[in-house]
């Protein structure tokens, strides 16, 4: 069963992986997104994830359904974290399983690419120097807006 959720709890990747799998499946894939300690040459100390949860969750579910169609199974799970995360903490975990491996690779990749394009989630990098800034994002499709709206 396709599973999609936004959570403020710590994500256990193995638990997300355990949501997929079937006797018919010969391959399972797990993607884990993690907060890393650097960005654009700056040292990062942590990351805050904000979401428009009421919209992000159904948008994530739509992406999961689209990916399941590519997968041709319903064994797909995605969980995205929000809140304050330390370096090394899991921000997103995506798992898929299918009879053959190509579909699992394709579906997992699709979910992470679409999340970055469409799901109303934002992240603010905290730098080791003490300052912070919102990570430059992507204008979602379906709004008629071509370029990131200049702020100010």
């Amino acid at each position, binding site marked *: 069963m396709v599973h999609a959720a936004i959570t403020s709890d710590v994500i256990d990747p193995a638990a997300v992986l355990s949501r997929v799998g079937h006797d018919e499946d010969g391959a399972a894939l797990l993607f884990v997104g993690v907060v890393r300690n650097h960005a654009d040459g700056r040292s990062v100390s942590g990351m805050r994830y904000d979401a428009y949860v009421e919209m992000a969750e159904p948008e994530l579910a739509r992406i999961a359904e689209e990916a399941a169609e590519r997968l041709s199974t319903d064994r797909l799970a995605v969980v995205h974290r929000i809140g304050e995360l330390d370096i090394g903490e899991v921000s997103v975990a995506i798992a898929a399983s299918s009879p053959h491996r190509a579909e699992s690779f394709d579906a997992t990749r699709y979910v992470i690419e679409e999340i970055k394009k469409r*799901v109303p*989630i934002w992240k603010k990098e905290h730098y080791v120097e003490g300052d912070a800034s*919102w990570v430059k994002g992507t*204008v979602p*499709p379906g709004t008629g807006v071509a370029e990131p709206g200049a*702020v100010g």
Partner: protein
Amino acid sequence: MNFSVQALFFAAYRDLVGTGEVQVELASGATVGDLVHSLRSRGAPFDALPEEPAIAVNRTYAYLDEPLAADDEVAFIPPVAGG
């Protein structure tokens, strides 16, 4: 006849306007674009919002020419950066 909608601000836009939510009264037939214009003409801090922000109406992405209705939830969506 006038009606009112709820404008929501997230992330960088929320920092910019200093609040997450504003009620806006609009004239009959107003579109998403009219709402943006109306907010920006309030002056600071709302004039710092982009002229053409990405918008979601009732949790679905929408174009600036989409007409609004009473009690619509209109979210100002900064460029997204999940993952």
